């Protein structure tokens, strides 16, 4: 068995510099559309967006990243593409006025995360899984995955919350001790994505539970999920997300 020990040591340290520094490797993030002024092309781009993530206000395009499902219809096969930014710090906090983040101080370096799949397509869950590989190694930051709600401080939900998972999700949230926070990961968890709204899916986790941190993306890359977790415990500043829009017209 010594071969594994030697192999492990020889491999060296592969872990990302994030969150102390920036991660610059290629292919770590798909990026998000940023919007901006695209002139006369704006109406055509808004028309192409199948999930109504784009909105035109006075020639400029604003993006509701909760609805963006990375279909690339606004950058591929068009004359003038929309701005994309290859960032990954996507965790946005929903500010609840007057409420202190109780997880922020005493627990911030030992957080147990309960990951719940509420109808996910597998991609968000796979990206959460990557947080355990040596490139991201979430343990070094004091995040641990737990299988039981009784030990959990953070509930991380992926998927649009299907009807048959709603009850289980609520029960798990109730079973968690306080203080607790809910992190919704992925466009489906934030808006229902391509599945909303139907007789089996609502418009995401917020229909069922109070959400504290939102991580957009379809799927958000591991670094974005890590950022969301750091935001949940007050160790990183949230990305300002635009206010949730009502149903598109």
């Amino acid at each position, binding site marked *: 068995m010594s071969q594994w020990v030697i*192999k492990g040591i020889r491999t060296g340290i592969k872990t990302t510099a994030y969150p102390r520094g920036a991660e610059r490797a*290629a292919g770590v993030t798909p990026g998000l559309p940023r919007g901006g002024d695209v002139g006369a092309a704006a109406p055509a781009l808004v028309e192409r967006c199948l999930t109504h993530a784009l909105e035109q206000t006075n020639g400029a395009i604003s993006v509701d990243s909760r609805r963006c499902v990375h279909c690339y219809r606004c950058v591929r096969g068009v004359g003038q593409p929309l701005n994309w930014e290859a960032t990954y710090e996507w965790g946005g906090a929903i500010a609840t006025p007057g409420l202190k983040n109780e997880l922020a101080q005493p627990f911030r370096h030992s957080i147990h995360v309960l990951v719940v799949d509420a109808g996910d397509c597998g991609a968000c869950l796979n990206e959460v*899984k990557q947080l355990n590989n*040596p490139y991201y190694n979430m343990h070094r930051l004091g995040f641990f995955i737990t299988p039981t709600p009784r030990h959990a401080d953070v509930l991380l939900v992926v998927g649009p919350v*299907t*009807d*048959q998972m709603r009850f289980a999700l609520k029960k798990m949230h109730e079973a968690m001790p306080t203080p607790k926070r809910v992190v919704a990961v992925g466009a489906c968890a934030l808006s229902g994505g391509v599945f909303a709204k139907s007789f089996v899916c609502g418009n995401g986790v917020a229909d069922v539970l109070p959400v504290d941190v939102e991580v957009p993306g379809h799927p958000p890359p591991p670094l974005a999920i890590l950022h969301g977790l750091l935001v949940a415990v007050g160790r990183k500043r949230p990305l300002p997300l635009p206010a949730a829009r009502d149903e598109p017209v």
Partner: protein
Amino acid sequence: MNHADLKEQIERRWPGDTQVGRDILSSTTEVTCTRAVLADLCRCIFQDWGFSFAGLIVEEGPSAWQLRYAFYGERDAGWVHVVVSAPVAENVFPSVVEWIHAADWHEREAEDLFGVHFAGHPHLGDFVLHDDAWQENVQPMRRGFDAQAAMRHRLPDADWRPRRIVQEPGAFVMPVGPKFSGVTESVHFLLETVGEDVIRSSTRLFYKWRAIEKLAEGKTVDEVLLLAERFAATTAFAHGLAFCQAVERVSGAELPARARALRVFLAELERLRQHAGAIQEICESTALVVANSQAGMLEEELLRVSGELTGHRYLFGLLAPGGLLCDLPTDACRKAFTQSQDILKRLNELERRLSISSSFLDRIEDVGVVRLSAATDYSLVGPVARASGLVRDLRRAQPYSGYETFDYQVPSEQEGDGYARLRVLFAEARQSVRIIEQATAVLKEGEVCRTVKFRPGAALGWVEAPRGGTFHWVRLGEGGRVARYRVVTPSFINWHSFHLAAEKFAFQDFPIILSTFDLSVAENDR
């Protein structure tokens, strides 16, 4: 056995009850038959002539049901579709499960969602719609059912109990899930045990049912493509490809050569990445920490290769009916090939190390065995089938996207245990890199997409996805809108057989058996 033989044999055995037609474009023999001979005809095709069962497609027309049983054989045999119709009021059909066990879950699903009854099926009810949470007599796939209307759901019934089979003294049912373990998909297992050993296990799925087949109805092709890519995103490209192929077949579209080569390139890149992910899960389940880290790194690196090449780590937003939504630079493809080659070297090294780790082999050998006879009965697909000696690969049997021009092998094993499945995954990863190399070599400059004029009609699209064959039936109506979308996924087929492997085993082997099957719940639940 080719089309002429099939036609002659069928017309001789069932004169008057059958009508045999031929669609050359998709090499399909279409047999229209009466309900009286349905079961016997299907039995003959499946058992006597050795065809595999691809799926049951139920369609509700304005006045009649149409049930289509799709079978596929080796290359010259092509496809056989057995079609039976009946007025909407007569919703009872003979069950074929006695002869085609693979049709079991298809009939249960159709009964649950359409209210079609299958006379002779031993166990209908409580399948997609869980009995403890849904009202009686809800049939969501019927034409009149509005997918956008809010449903009034019951709260799950706390007194509901699953069926118990094992009746020995001291036997009890251990419920596992829908939430269990660390980062896992939602699925429920009922493990019947009398102590240490699990005697029988059954799986309760569809907690994640998103009803994409219903959501697709009435949508445009582009909107349904989003659904096809996103219902099971770890194999997004394969499912998107199967959908596009079905649409292209309906519309009679021809693809540019560059698009075909790039599709093969991307499909194999996805297979390589998905297999690396499956290998990582197997290492994780056996608690081999360093191997788990090594495999995890390879999976992440392949995700980065995909991300660097295409912009998206899971290959979203690349496919379009008629080709690809955007071109990929040939240089970038060459770079991705070189990177995959390097990753494959380390994957080979990992396999060598695993093959001499006795503690690992002890846990994975002779675990979760599926015999060839069972694999054939269940019409299993993908690495699971090939590890049991059932060698049927759609890339070879019914080639698409020009796979017939590539030189590669279809690896297989005989033992059907966990280790055989692992070896098949490693061997297929090697073949994928071989195909990637050839696809890079044949890339010629040129267009990557041609406009497709959508025509009304229906066709099947099939792809050998990383987990096995996937079958997408698409009916286009007027104005290029999708009238019916039926998806049969490899996980739906292989989950059916999972209980065979998870029977009479020690409790601690359960995660290992599960991981060697490489099953996706999202793919099954759709």
